[in-house]
């Protein structure tokens, strides 16, 4: 059974990475193989629908965003449509994001008060996603070819066989060029990412937990991004996750926002 740790390509898919360990290969090949296997298992869901609660915690302050998320996987890229339900004053606001296979991102917004759909500029990859500690980069499925890999070691992760793989971005503009990935090698799901700056400072961590088996895929039900400097964090909690619900390209046309 195939499994996934991706959600509307936006989130989880971007965070998934891994590959099947093959005996006798060197650390580079082995790391890349693991990552490729995670990516392979994260594709093919077609379409999905879920509820998402985003809790942004900074000191004593908590901000909550609730939304309905729909995702579509297609030949020319992935599309995600998010309908905000909370905060209350933004209820009904919709975002549509289309990520082309060449990495170009298109975005639209629908504001109920104006009842008008407008294209907005493609956010920079390091911009905050909806004011959270996730960036747009975090929510974009990274291309395997965009990194070099190195298998570090095998290590049990929460009682499951796993591996730690280091990946280094080939793009020198990336904010966190070096990342360490904790991957369960039975389900091939990602359990943790540690992000390092170009100076080698461990700046933040992402934990993926509460995996649920949805159809043929594994989906992380809870994701926590922690900024180590101030312990501020954002928790994403998924609910009512369904794949293969019959969404089509029509549901992801900008002109359909608000309908």
């Amino acid at each position, binding site marked *: 059974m195939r499994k996934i740790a991706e959600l509307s390509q936006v989130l989880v898919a971007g965070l998934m990475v891994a590959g099947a360990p093959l005996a006798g290969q060197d650390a580079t090949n082995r790391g890349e193989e693991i990552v490729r296997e995670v990516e392979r298992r994260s594709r093919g869901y077609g379409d999905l629908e879920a509820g998402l609660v985003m809790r942004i915690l900074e000191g004593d302050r908590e*901000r*909550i965003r609730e939304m*309905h998320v729909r995702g579509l996987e297609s030949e020319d890229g992935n599309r995600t449509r998010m*309908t905000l*339900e*909370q*905060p*209350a*004053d*933004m*209820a*009904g606001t919709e975002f549509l994001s*289309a990520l082309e296979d060449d990495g*170009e991102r*298109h975005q639209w917004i629908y504001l*109920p*008060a*104006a*009842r*008008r759909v*407008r*294209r*907005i*500029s*493609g*956010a*920079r990859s390091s*911009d*905050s996603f909806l*004011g959270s500690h996730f960036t747009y980069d975090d929510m974009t499925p990274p291309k395997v070819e965009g990194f070099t890999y190195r298998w570090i070691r095998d290590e049990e992760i929460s009682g499951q066989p796993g591996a730690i793989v280091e990946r280094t971005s080939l793009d020198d503009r990336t904010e966190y060029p070096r990342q360490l990935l904790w991957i369960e090698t039975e389900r091939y799901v990602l359990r943790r990412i540690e992000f390092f700056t170009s100076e080698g400072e461990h700046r933040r961590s992402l934990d993926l937990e509460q995996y649920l088996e949805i159809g043929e895929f594994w989906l992380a039900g809870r994701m926590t991004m922690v900024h180590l400097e101030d312990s501020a964090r954002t928790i994403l909690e998924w609910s009512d996750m369904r794949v293969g619900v019959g969404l089509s*390209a*029509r549901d992801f*046309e*900008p*002109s*359909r926002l608000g*309908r």
Partner: protein
Amino acid sequence: MILRRLTVWVAVLATCNVSEGLAAQANRIQVDGVRFSGTSAEAVTVPYIMIGAGRRDSMFGGRIDLSGSIQLDVQAIDASLVNIEELTFNYSAGPLDFRIGVGDVSWGLSDVRSPVDAMAPRAVFFDAYNGARLGQPLLGLSAFSQWGDLEAVIFPFPRSPHMGGRLKRTWNGSSVRSDLGWGERPVGGLRMARVLGSTDIALSYVHGGERTLWISSDRPGEAGVVIPSLRQAGVELQRALGSVVLRTEGSLAKRDGDTEARIVAGAEWYPKPYLTLMVEQGLSSLNRAQASPLVDDIMLGGQLVTEEIRFSNLVFIDPKSGNRHYFVETRWTPTARTAIEVELITWAGDATQEPGLALRQRNVLRASLLRYF
């Protein structure tokens, strides 16, 4: 009695918990105090109470969209407005979507003076460029294909623009009647929209009675809302270039026999995630001294949005007279369900250079308390 029943109905609707329902808009209660002043209207402070709610649910194999609002003029209930913005049943069959009920369409790109958006009447209270869109009976059909998204809509029994509050006098003091009822000059249109990479393009055609707010002076000191006959072809283009989005829309219209070409072109720049700057220029082939909209002016604007504060401003500049009209709004959201807004509409320049029939408030100050539920 009717208003009371509707108030209860909206409140019950907004608080009912339907598991599959989605909020169609922000449900809110809003209390306004609006101070009108200037020479075209007497200085007066008007209290309003507004209730707005919306819901979207699956039903009968399709989907019901419902949203509406009630705006109560506390001192003059007769001047209040009940607006069912949307009450439609939507049904999909293959590539086709059907829509029937009461609602509207929002075509075009410019928020305040779209030349393409000619079928949707508004209820205006403060200025002629904003206000709630009024729902009207409609039949709609959408078809999706590889060529784009085609939408056809007919308003067989349309509504007229509504002027409330103090916006019943023109710049030169003429009183304005808006006594047209429903059903005056039905209107319908077609629109094809498509995304081509970083560019969105839409073509449209509208035929029938125009719902943009137009007035005509029929005798000294008096004017009335008119519904001109309209045949109009429109085009919309928007394109993202890095952190800038360019928008252009234009129309070629035959309105009561007069041909007019209009274009509105602008750009929005997002230098930071919390900051938006915009510029927009409107042009018309006619040299009109009309009531609305601010066709030929340059618009400059900006918006600063943080977690709790939103500050937005627009200024329209008439390149001929140099007159400026300002729209400044600040919003503070101290809690997740409470907001406070202050809006100022004012102007500067030479009063004699303004079109006499302009529907522009000279000075308005609005303070509002909003509570979301």
